[in-house]
């Protein structure tokens, strides 16, 4: 019924620590412009931070696409993280709290999923990973 329209798009390459910070700032600015509540802004920025770091550490770098979208009823922020790294062999396992291969807390993926309204993960071993998250205004 409702057509999803994209109101604005920004792309950032992720190759260094500083790029992760840049992704955070970009998502924050978009979330403010989309009039997300303060808590929701914080949630989507935190999720973006986790995912951007994953792209850098596990994917060997990649890019982020941040979009402001409208589904006809409400506005939202959609962020896409893409890398051409080794991919994720067991997606279910990777989404389990506390599971990590990189020495972290293992909350990056699972936590990011909890912080967003929509979470899509597409990964193939050897071909890379693509994760898209969306947060809607309430």
């Amino acid at each position: 019924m409702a057509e999803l329209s994209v109101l604005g798009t920004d792309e950032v390459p992720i190759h260094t620590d500083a790029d992760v910070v840049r992704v955070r700032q970009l998502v924050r600015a978009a979330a403010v412009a989309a009039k997300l509540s303060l808590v929701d802004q914080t949630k989507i920025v935190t999720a973006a931070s986790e995912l951007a770091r994953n792209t850098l550490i596990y994917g060997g770098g990649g890019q982020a696409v941040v979009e402001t979208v409208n589904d006809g009823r409400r506005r939202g922020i959609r962020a896409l993280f893409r890398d051409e790294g080794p991919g994720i062999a067991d997606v279910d396992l990777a989404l389990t709290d506390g599971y990590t291969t990189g020495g972290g807390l293992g909350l990056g993926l699972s936590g990011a999923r909890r912080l967003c309204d929509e979470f899509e993960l597409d990964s193939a071993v050897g071909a890379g990973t693509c994760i898209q998250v969306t947060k809607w205004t309430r």
Partner: protein
Amino acid sequence: MERVPILKIGRVLLVSVQIDLQDQTALALQEDLSERIVSTGARGVLIEISALEIVDSFIGRMLSTIASISRVLDAETVVVGMRPAVAITLVELGLSLGGVRTALNVEKGLEILDRDMTVEDDNVIEDEPAGSAAGSVTEARWPN
């Protein structure tokens, strides 16, 4: 890369994070703090994060690690000034910052540290008048 400044006030090291932390900056802060605790003999660490717009799992882990390291080095860590939205997000993320003490603001954080240190001072110094003893200890430890 920017570095977060560490201030020394009495027996407490004060870190006020005013920038959007890069992972490397966070790691550097962790190292700097460990060294400063040892070199100054500080008994308390106060990390003020009211300017932080987010705390993700990496920064969360940094805070926990700093608390653990400083405890090994005989200093108590208090994280102060976390924003409500940040706290709500951390809970949702599944991070509880185990082992990290928290306070609403710098003042209350200092109160906690003071109380701890006073208790210890009371335990250690039994024979001498409290005032002069505390004074001499202070001088002996921080000769600058």
